[in-house]
Structure formats: C-alpha cells, structure tokens
C-alpha cells in the first residue's frame, strides 16, 4: 500500500531528459522545455531518457551513439525525427510524431520501464575501453616525465602557456556536435591551457537553423505585421532564456520560455522577467568580450550587426513598417553583453510594434527581403554560417567567457530552399 503510494508520488516527478537536436529539431526542443512531464538536463549522465529530435547528419551518427551510451541504463530513447530509428533500437525506442506529446510519452515510457513492463535500450557502443592501455610497464607508459600513450591517447607535450609563458601541457579534445554549449551540429577541436582557450578549430559547422514559418511566408505573400513581430519577440525571448540558463539562472529561463508562447501585443518585456535579471547579464564572465573587428565586421547580420551600431534592417524598406514609425534599435559596443541587450530591446520593440500593427491591421509587403530575427532573409541569399569567425574571437578567453561569447552569436546558416519546397512555395 505504502509502496504503491510512494510509487505514485514518484511518478509525478518530471523525468530528466537529455536532448539531441538535429536539423529542424528546434520546435520539438522548445516543446520539451515547456512540458511539465520532463526536465531538460545538460548532461546525459543525469538523464533517464534520450530525446532525438530532428534529422541527424550521417557523419554525426557515431557521436549520437556515444551520447546514447552515456545515458545510464535502464534508459529510454524517444525518437521524434523523420529519420528511421536505428535497427538496434527499433524494439525499444518510442517513436513520437506530435511534438506536444513528447514529454508526456517519455514520462510514461520511463514509468513502464520502472514497472518492468518495458525493456531498456540495448547499448549502441561496445562495453570496451575506447583507447586500451598501450603503455610500457606501470605509470604513464613513456619515458621520464613525458611521452607515451597510456590508454591509447598520447600524453600532452609541454608548450608555451598563453597567459604567463610557462611550459605547460595543453589539453586537446573535440566537443560537439550534441553539446548544449554549442549550436546543434557544431563540433570543434579545442586546445586548453588550464581554463584558457589556446586553440579552436571548427570541425563541423552547425546545422542550418529553421526559423518560425511566418518569416518564410512573408517572403512570398503579405502577412500580418503583428504576427511577424510576435514571432520575432518570442524568438529573442527564447534566446535570452538560453543565455540565462547558461549563467545558472534556470528558473528564470524556464519562466521566460513559458511567457514566450503566450505573448500578447503591447506587453512590456519587464512584465515577463525582472528587469534586473536581464541587466545582470552585463556582469557575467565574457560580457565585454566577443567584439568582431576589421574585415569580418561586414559578415555580421541582423541583431549582431545592430549591436555594434550598424542600423541595417530590411524593415526600413517596408511601407507598412514606415507607416508605423519603425526605427531600428542599435547599441554601440558590439560586445557579448551588447548583443544580449539588443535581443532584449528588439523583443520589447517587437511587442510595441505588434500592438500598433494589430490596431492598424498592417500587412507586410513582400519585396524579396524579410528581416528575420537572425538577419535579412532573401530568396537568393539567406543568412550564411559564420562559425569560422569563432577561432579569432575565442582564443585567449577563459572557458566561461568563451561560452558566453558563443551564446551571443547567430552562427548557423538559415534553412531556406527545402523549407520553401515543404511549404509549397518558391519560384
């Protein structure tokens, strides 16, 4: 009796889930964040279930297997993707088509697993040492104090430390493509000197970003400006929530994500989150870093460019926006904190514009270019990838500063051709 009661009580707790986000998996991830049935965790070792959302590139399949192997057994895999489920998981993975049901179904599957009604996923990686011992005798396997290949991985050789010129060992590893610290699909080879980044090589670029459908529609046909601006505000608010989460303010981030789905025209951004919470982002590690200089500056677009004082904005060419008195918001510094402030200010401006547009029933004019939340979206040149700018920005920063800088950029290219084909549009 007591055990049944305790089990019922335990079953009400949200299930920790680690998300693996692929191409077009953004909407499912957002649904997962909003679901009361699950908690999205930052490491598979804390998770009971793995949620695969969107299509995973073929070259990242092995990485997916490694992440799957890091979720402790017994575990559940939820498959919310157009891709076929791997053969090994076909008997145990739960396939979810409706993203709004994802959290609920994961919770039910974990309960079934605990009750013994469902079996755990099999291991996709062999239970063997990934790099077996190749050393000589005891110790590190080399000679003297350095060298050798203990456990199949070479010992680091000393090199000049960036910060104080000492001869110290660099730590080299690859991170991604499913790290919550990087955009989905992005992998990088990182060299660390202590906590300072000494090398950052992009191994694979982030998956293309899928924008809310209304921005693609606005390229082809007139859409309500209020809808465009509400979608813009929600996009920026979700990105701010990610920045808050990165800085350890998970509860505020969760609240902000919930507010983002029920935005109303004319709402003030200060009603959604305590203004001081967002202002505190000015003081986090790396807030003053990440300034793009010289010839690379021209490659920034949208809010990132406006955060450095460049007032380019496709909305200035739209008569509907001109009639509403639209003026782009700009910052001066072009730093990480300036980009976060730009998102906040643009979200606030979008809510005000949405109220004015709803009153005037304003419709956009398709002119071949739409200002999306990540920059100008046109049929010929949608926003392109800028992840190759990162090495010059990140080298020399401490790890925490670098993660802030990464979280303040729109690095991924924007999906265009296949989205338009799916929507039945295009030329």
């Amino acid at each position, binding site marked *: 009796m007591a055990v049944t009661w305790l089990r019922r009580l335990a079953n009400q707790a949200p299930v920790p889930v680690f998300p693996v986000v692929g191409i077009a998996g953004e909407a499912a991830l957002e649904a997962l964040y909003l679901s009361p049935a699950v908690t999205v965790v930052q490491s598979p070792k804390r998770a009971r279930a793995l949620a695969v959302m969107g299509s995973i590139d073929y070259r990242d399949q092995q990485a997916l297997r*490694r992440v799957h192997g890091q979720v402790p057994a017994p575990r559940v895999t939820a498959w919310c993707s157009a891709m076929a489920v791997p053969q090994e998981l076909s008997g145990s993975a739960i396939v979810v088509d409706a993203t709004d049901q994802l959290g609920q179904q994961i919770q039910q599957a974990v309960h079934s697993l605990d009750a013994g009604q469902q079996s755990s996923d099999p291991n996709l990686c062999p*239970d063997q040492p990934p790099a077996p011992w190749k050393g000589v005798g005891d110790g590190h396997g080399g000679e003297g104090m350095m060298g050798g290949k203990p456990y199949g991985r070479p010992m680091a050789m000393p090199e000049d430390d960036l910060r104080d010129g000492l001869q110290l060992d660099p730590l080299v590893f690859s991170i991604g493509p499913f790290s919550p610290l990087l955009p989905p699909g992005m992998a990088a080879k990182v060299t660390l000197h202590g906590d300072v980044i000494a090398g950052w090589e992009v191994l694979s670029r982030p998956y293309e970003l899928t924008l809310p459908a209304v921005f693609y529609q606005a390229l082809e046909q007139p859409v309500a400006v209020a809808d465009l601006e509400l979608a813009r505000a929600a996009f920026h608010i979700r990105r701010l929530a990610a920045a808050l989460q990165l800085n350890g303010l998970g509860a505020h981030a969760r609240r902000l994500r919930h507010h983002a789905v029920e935005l109303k025209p004319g709402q003030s951004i200060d009603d959604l989150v305590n203004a001081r919470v967002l202002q505190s982002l000015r003081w986090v590690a790396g807030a003053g870093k990440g300034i793009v200089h010289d010839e690379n500056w021209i490659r920034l677009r949208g809010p990132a460019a406006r955060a450095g004082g460049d007032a380019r904005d496709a909305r200035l060419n739209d008569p509907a926006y001109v009639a509403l008195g639209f003026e782009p918001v700009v910052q001066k510094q072009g730093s990480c904190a300036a980009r976060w402030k730009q998102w906040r200010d643009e979200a606030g401006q979008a809510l005000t514009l949405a109220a004015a547009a709803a009153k005037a029933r304003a419709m956009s004019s398709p002119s071949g270019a739409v200002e999306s939340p990540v920059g100008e979206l046109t049929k010929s040149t949608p926003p392109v990838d800028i992840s190759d700018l990162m090495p010059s920005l990140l080298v020399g920063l401490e790890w925490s500063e670098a993660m802030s800088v990464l979280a303040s950029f729109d690095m991924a290219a924007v999906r265009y051709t296949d989205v338009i084909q799916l929507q039945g549009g295009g030329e």
Partner: protein
Amino acid sequence: MELKQLLVLLLVVIITAGFGFWVQHVPGESKKSIPWPQRAPFLGGGQPDTHAWSRFHIRYYPMTLLLIAFEMEMMFMYPWAVVYVSEGIKALAEMGMFLGILSIGILYGWREGAFKWQ
C-alpha cells in the same frame, strides 16, 4: 581490568572492521560495474585527443603559499606570547628574526602577484 579493556577495544575494532567490509562488499554484489562508454567525459559526442594527465598552472597556488606563511606565523606566535614575559628581550629578538624572514616570503609573494586574484 586492563585485559578486559583490551578485549573491549578488540571487539570494537572487529565490529568496526566487519561493518566496513560489509558496507564494501554486500551492497556491491548487486552493483554492476560502470560500462566503458559512461567512464568517458561528456563532450557532446566528441572525444579527448590527449590523456587527461596534464600539468597546468593552478592559479590559486601563490595565494595558498601566502596563506600557509601567515598560518605558520600565527602557530609560532601563540606559544611565543605565553613565554614572552618570562623570556624578555631574547623572545623579542627571536620573533623579530622570524618575522623578518617571513616578510621576505610575503614580499616575494607580492612580486609574484599573489595578492591579485585572477
């Protein structure tokens, strides 16, 4: 009486050691070993290229040295304060020498940037 005390002590040792062995082994029977994929660090699907056994600069190291320097000073000063009145000028000279040597360490720490928290 002494034998009785020794026996009690022996009993306590046996019970404690027995409990330690029980805790170590009995629950472990049902515990499976951690599989190899889970022993690797989580890098979002990435892998380490070099062994994690690497030497890097512990930034707080000069500050810990400084803390030890001050702590040693206090450890010497307490007993010194007790005998200061009876020993007189001799104790004062000894403390003067000690603080002089310690000051050199503090000046060295200062030069090395130990007072700047990085």
